[in-house]
């Protein structure tokens, strides 16, 4: 109804406006007629009388406009006029419009993107009903968020501030549904977990408190929607089915709703099992141990009306009771509340600082873009000086002209904002579904919401206002009579202005970014071919955890031996080794190492921390790690044999004094074990950072330090990069022959290396994006200045040409200043960039600016950028026709 009324009102005012215009016209005509009648009576001829009457009346259009304003301003009509006129103006200069919209799209898009990530990770609560009142509990001054199970029970039962406290933990397991056994990530959740969060099952039912009857009493599984969709093909009959989890039978009882991805950002589980069954899954006995803190997070909704301070005080009073009752286990039992989702204050501060930095950067880019567009806009306004003057002379008000300019700016900024937002929405959806690590299910809830759209709109309007405001002074100062008479003034400042300095800074930053991104790209290219102390080409990695298939400790070594032998029998496989964690893979082991003479084995007496590997005898062959001296292991180096180790050169040199004399020497571990060095291997890259310094590393026989989760390293004698499927199928069938219920994760070592190169790739990519942003800023900046310079000096250029100046001279006169600034900025930026890449070398392996390709590339890039930015103004300067110009002005 309201809309109808409004429409009727609008229609009637529109109709009235037509009528009003006609009446007004008639009334003014009548006035002039009366005036002419008087004049005629005084003896003037009719025609002359009417002419004089019109002159005496004054500017008819001006007064009509004034009448319109006095009738209460026809805002919508004026706006529509402004928009129509602006669109016409913009269509007339597509180059300017394109550059302006693109610039704003990039700048606003970047802001929207960063804001959406911030919004998704920090501002928006977890996606559960009433997420605003959901809090997690952290303990003591160190803010430990993990708790022991008995402590959790006490907190849950004794507090008066929460509507129930739930707990969850993250567990890995092997799932066997009868087909391919697979590795899965679980939440082990307390019985009240789903009730406390207030979510309802999509299918079947959830785990409930009434399911818990002591350890291992509830063998139930609740699937996430995502896992149900991808692994059970949306099969509704899945509820009630029994599957094997680490060789124990579990019943699927329900499926969670699609929007629920767990209570942790970055990581979502495949399914949920009751926490009372966790001991059964990982073979531990933690449930009753108050001293062992392993419950990942405890969280709940605050009761209505309870503040966080009251809740913390309530919990802390329980804490002091715990401290008194269990002095040995529960020290430091004061509690505080924290938002869930980022595991307390564990990585929140670093992330927040990082995102705040990004936001600042994006904001700066937007400001820079506005400054540049402002000067472009001023150049346009200067070009249109005559038009403006003419309109002023014809009775337009300055307000009206400014309003039209602002409309133009707003239109551009809205178009740019819309394009930028669209781009960032696409990117955000990609980012939400991004799974960079195949073994690790990610959860990045950064899909945009109303907040993001609002921020983008506000940014667009604000930036339109910012750059639209630049030519205001120019318009206000316009003196119509002067300009119509003499043409626009040709003054163009010779001295250094703030605008110049800003432009140089922008160009320099752009050059720094271009330099660093080129250095990073070259470093990345080189690191694909460098020596890591092993050769990842033509190697398959098979990741298995025998506990997931129910093997007890005693049976693990024999099974691993059988697996190695089976792989060895595959045609085309040259050697097979076993290692607990391959180098450059997350989860490496580190141990303090002591000299043989040290008797007091406290941590401060350690000579070094060494990276540790448990390997099978064939590992060095399979990984192609060179044995420099001594002997490799054999299967005789078992539990009963003397403890031995292979060490790398760095270890030998740093800890044992010399590389040559190291063999036969001993060193000690923390528990006092004496180990004899039997061989030296080459240095390599070990932690997941290729840029690391050489690190000491030791390799021990896997029989002397057994591990149930280990990786088979299988080297093939041919190129497997092109056709790994064949080998994968062979490996799978061999494994199935050994144990059909053993989950295994198979990939090539080259693929695995992507994880190690992740940081470098990300750094390179972000530098590339920033470089592109910087280039865009510099281009608009130079373009703006060049365009302004050319349009201000058109007359001068025309005179020069008329006096016989060559094309070169004209170009130099028109573009000398922006080009000088470009050269100055580029050189500064290049020098700073070369210094900055020293920092880059910590992230990207083998990043060095001493590379002719990089230097040449930067110079070329900046030249291209300058050429691109000055192309249109240069064409304009060269296209000056002195005859026309001098006649016109």
């Amino acid at each position: 109804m309201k809309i109808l009324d409004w429409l009727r009102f609008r229609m009637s005012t529109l109709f009235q406006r037509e009528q009003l215009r006609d009446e007004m016209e008639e009334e003014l005509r009548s006035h002039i007629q009366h005036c002419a009648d008087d004049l005629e009576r005084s003896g003037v001829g009719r025609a002359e009388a009417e002419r004089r009457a019109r002159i005496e009346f004054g500017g008819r259009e001006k007064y009509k406009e004034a009448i319109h304003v006095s009738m209460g301003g026809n805002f919508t009509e004026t706006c529509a006029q402004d928009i129509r006129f602006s669109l016409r103006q913009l269509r007339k200069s597509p180059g300017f419009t394109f550059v302006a919209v693109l610039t704003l799209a990039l700048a606003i898009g970047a802001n929207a993107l960063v804001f959406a990530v911030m919004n998704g990770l920090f501002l928006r609560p977890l996606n559960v009903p009433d997420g605003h009142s959901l809090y997690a509990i952290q303990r003591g001054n160190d803010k430990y968020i993990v708790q022991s199970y008995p402590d959790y029970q006490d907190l849950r039962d004794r507090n008066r501030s929460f509507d129930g406290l739930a707990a969850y933990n993250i567990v890995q397991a092997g799932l066997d549904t009868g087909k391919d056994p697979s590795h899965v990530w679980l939440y082990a959740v307390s019985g009240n977990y789903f009730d406390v969060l207030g979510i309802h099952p999509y299918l079947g039912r959830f785990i409930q408190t009434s399911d818990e009857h002591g350890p291992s009493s509830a063998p139930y599984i609740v699937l996430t929607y995502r896992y149900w969709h991808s692994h059970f093909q949306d099969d509704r009959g899945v509820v009630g089915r029994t599957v094997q989890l680490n060789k124990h039978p579990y019943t699927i009882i329900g499926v969670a709703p699609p929007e629920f991805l767990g209570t942790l950002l970055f990581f979502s589980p495949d399914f949920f099992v009751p926490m009372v069954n966790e001991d059964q899954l990982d073979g531990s006995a933690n449930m009753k141990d108050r001293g062992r803190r392993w419950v990942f997070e405890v969280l709940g909704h605050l009761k209505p009306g309870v503040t966080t301070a009251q809740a913390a005080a309530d919990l802390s009073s329980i804490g002091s009771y715990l401290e008194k009752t269990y002095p040995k286990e529960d020290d430091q039992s004061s509690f505080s509340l924290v938002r869930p989702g980022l595991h307390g204050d564990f990585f929140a501060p670093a992330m927040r600082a990082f995102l705040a930095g990004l936001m600042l950067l994006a904001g700066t880019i937007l400001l820079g873009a506005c400054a540049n567009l402002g000067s472009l806009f001023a150049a346009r306004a200067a070009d249109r000086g005559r038009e403006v003057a003419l309109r002023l002379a014809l009775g337009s008000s300055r307000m009206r002209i400014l309003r039209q300019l602002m409309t133009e700016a707003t239109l551009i900024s809205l178009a740019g904002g819309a394009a930028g937002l669209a781009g960032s929405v696409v990117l955000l959806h990609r980012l939400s579904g991004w799974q960079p690590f195949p073994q690790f299910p990610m959860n990045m809830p950064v899909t945009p919401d109303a907040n993001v759209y609002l921020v983008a709109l506000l940014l667009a309007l604000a930036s339109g206002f910012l750059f639209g405001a630049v030519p205001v002074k120019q318009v206000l100062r316009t003196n119509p009579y002067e300009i119509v008479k003499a043409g626009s003034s040709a003054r163009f400042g010779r001295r250094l202005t703030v605008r110049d300095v800003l432009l140089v800074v922008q160009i320099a930053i752009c050059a720094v970014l271009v330099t660093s991104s080129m250095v990073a790209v070259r470093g990345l290219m080189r690191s694909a071919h460098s020596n890591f102390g092993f050769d990842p080409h033509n190697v398959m990695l098979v990741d298995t955890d025998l506990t997931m298939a129910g093997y007890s400790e005693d049976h693990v070594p024999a099974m691993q031996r059988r697996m190695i032998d089976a792989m060895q029998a595959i045609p085309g496989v040259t050697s097979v080794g076993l290692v607990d964690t391959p180098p450059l893979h997350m989860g490496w082991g580190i141990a303090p190492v002591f000299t043989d003479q040290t008797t007091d084995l406290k941590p401060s007496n350690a000579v070094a921390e060494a990276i540790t590997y448990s390997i099978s005898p064939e590992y060095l062959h399979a990984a192609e790690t060179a044995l420099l001296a001594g002997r490799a292991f054999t299967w005789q180096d078992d539990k009963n044999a003397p403890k031995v180790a292979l060490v790398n050169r760095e270890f030998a040199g740093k800890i044992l004094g010399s590389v040559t004399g190291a063999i036969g020497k001993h060193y000690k571990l923390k528990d006092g074990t004496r180990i004899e060095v039997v061989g030296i291997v080459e240095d390599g890259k070990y932690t997941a950072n290729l840029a690391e310094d050489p690190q000491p590393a030791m390799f021990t026989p896997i029989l002397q330090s057994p591990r149930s989760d280990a990786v088979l390293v299988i080297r093939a004698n041919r190129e497997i990069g092109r056709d790994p499927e064949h080998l994968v199928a062979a490996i799978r069938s061999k494994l199935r022959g050994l144990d059909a219920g053993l989950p295994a994760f198979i990939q090539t070592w080259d693929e695995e290396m992507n994880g190690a190169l992740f940081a470098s790739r990300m750094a390179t990519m972000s530098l590339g994006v920033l470089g592109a942003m910087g280039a865009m800023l510099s281009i608009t900046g130079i373009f703006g200045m060049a365009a302004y310079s050319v349009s201000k000096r058109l007359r001068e250029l025309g005179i020069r040409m008329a006096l016989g100046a060559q094309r070169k001279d004209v170009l130099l006169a028109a573009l000398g200043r922006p080009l000088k600034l470009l050269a100055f900025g580029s050189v500064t930026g290049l020098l700073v960039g070369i210094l900055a890449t020293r920092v880059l070398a910590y992230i990207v392996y083998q990043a060095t600016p001493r590379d002719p390709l990089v230097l040449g590339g930067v110079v070329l890039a900046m030249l291209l950028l300058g050429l691109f930015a000055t192309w249109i103004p240069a064409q304009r300067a060269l296209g000056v026709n002195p005859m026309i110009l001098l006649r016109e002005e």
Partner: protein
Amino acid sequence: MNDQAQILPGTLDLLILRAVSLGPLHGYGILLRIGQISANALLIEQGALYPGLFRLVRKGLLQANWGTSENNRKAKFYELTAAGSNRLREETDSWNRLAGAIAAALSPQPEEI
């Protein structure tokens, strides 16, 4: 021409109200009447009259009707509404007070003599 005074901002409305208070007039007639009652001492650009007229109609101080003029031409005639004559009285009073005060302030003071 040159000894005509520029009218003060805001006083045009008052002059219009005063001009039509003596009977309905069309736009040109109002102009002539103002010239007549002010003894041609005030300079008013002809067109500037109309925004004021439309404003006063919108405020409900004047009402307008089409009719035929003494020259036998179609013209729009303006006359005061009740609100218009009230407003004219108030404005006249306040103008007189203001003018009196300013005249008193500007007249030679005893201590100056």
